[in-house]
């Protein structure tokens, strides 16, 4: 026990010196092309590349952490990591709990994927990921909503016939349509206000730092290049 206390104390001391500016970036790691785990077992995708570039511009050291989508906001608020960079759309509801940087992708329509083109969305059973703008939208419009914890499961529900269609970001559905007979419906829904990084409301400095970094990437066009490269959204 004594040893444990000693080593904790030693750890605390050494860490105090190397305090510099480490920012822990929280992401989901299950939402290609935004963020996913690559073959090597590391976080990869549009947001990985974007986040690393932002940190470079802001001269911060960044550490990547994965967290389940469901508890991604509570864990930010309680300080397990410092930012959420997980394809999170800026909404008023979330803005009450956390703060957002300026959006790094423009507002884009959400799309439906189904097993056949003639699914009538009204009155159908629609799958969506829990606590997403899409889930809220489906609940609002009066269709039957089935929620799943991960994006993968929402698509699997359509394949297995449990749901008639899935509503999600178009860029995510682009990666799954064409396989196993999945097609994208023509109907789109204009929801969401662009995707931004989430930070704690008390972290005004961090928000300003990332706002500036995002602005500089917008100004020199490198953000648009990244968006095109990963095909995540329309460009600015």
């Amino acid at each position, binding site marked *: 026990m004594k040893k444990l206390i000693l080593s904790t104390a030693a750890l605390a001391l050494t860490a105090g010196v190397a305090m510099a500016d480490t920012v822990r970036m929280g992401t989901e790691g299950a939402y290609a092309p935004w963020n996913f*785990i*690559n073959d090597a077992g590391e976080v990869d995708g549009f947001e990985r590349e974007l986040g690393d570039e932002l940190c470079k511009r802001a001269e911060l050291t960044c550490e990547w952490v994965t967290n389940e989508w469901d508890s991604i906001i509570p864990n930010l*608020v309680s300080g397990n990591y410092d930012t959420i960079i997980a394809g999170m759309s800026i909404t008023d509801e979330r803005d009450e709990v956390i703060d957002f940087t300026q959006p790094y992708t423009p507002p884009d329509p959400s799309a439906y994927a189904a097993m056949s083109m003639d699914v009538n969305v009204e009155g159908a059973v629609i799958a969506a990921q829990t606590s997403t703008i899409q889930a809220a939208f489906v609940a609002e419009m009066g269709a039957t909503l089935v929620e799943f914890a991960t994006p993968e499961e929402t698509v*699997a529900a359509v394949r297995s016939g449990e749901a008639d269609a899935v509503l999600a970001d178009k860029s995510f559905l682009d990666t799954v349509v064409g396989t196993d007979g999945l097609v994208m419906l023509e109907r789109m829904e204009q929801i969401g206000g662009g995707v931004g990084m989430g930070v*704690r409301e*008390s972290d005004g400095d961090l928000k300003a730092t990332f706002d500036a970094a995002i602005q500089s990437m917008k100004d020199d066009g490198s953000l648009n290049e990244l968006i095109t490269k990963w095909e995540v959204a329309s460009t600015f």
Partner: protein
Amino acid sequence: MFEYCTDPETLDGLRWLSCYLTTGKHINFYWSFVTVLVLLFITAPTALAFGFLGAMSARAQVAPVRWLGQAYISVVRGVPDIAFFLFFVIALDQGFEWMRHQAFCPDWTDPIRQGNDFLVCPDAKLPLSSSPQWVHEVYGFFLAVLTFAIVFGAFAANVMFGAMRAVPRAQMETAEAYGMTHRQTFWRVLVPQMWMYALPGLGNLWMILIKATPLLFLLGVEDIVYWARELGGTINPRFTDYPHGDWRLWYFLALLVFYLAFTRVSEILIERLNKRLRHGQAIVGAGA
């Protein structure tokens, strides 16, 4: 891993599979088995200790101690595991940080609670936000062990409380008649004999504990079910060298085999232990 893995598209059959099964992501999957096993082997004795303390205090002669023991047993057993894992752990973590905050940053004037945010000074963060990722992982693991131990300790306490009462009263009276103190009868007569009555219940708990490990992911520890789901999911060729469809069935089958094999081995060991404990005991019908 292997030299021929540089261009997976040209491979087929077993060679492809051998490359596929040795990607960094799969290595993480294999490590998560180690994580789960280590967790179980640390948690089990810790929970047993919690349970023993709980049972001991629930039958203590001093009333406040007894109330404390009984409250622990009934409150923790009554709260759903998932609620316990979501709320208690965050509270525990914040509790630790609050204590460190009081100790390390006496001059800090900003309030700790700002709206939804919980803010301690940077020195009090646990682990420090600048510590390497493995420190965070070890800390998360430690929280997991503690939470599992508290939850399963309450159930174990109830089992042992019952087991202690199952030891025939006549034996205790005989011991007292020989002039043993209360403490002596407890340690020399009651405790050695109660294990036999407690073992079936504790064995049951062990089985449940094995199956409860997927709750780990709620605490940010990536367990075998997380990786199985992650690896089994459909992967588009844009994001991997090894594209495949929905293979979750195969991964979950592998988990099924793992859990069944593990519980079967446990059953055999518990049965052996049971035989040993009953050896030479004068009581019939116990521990069946």
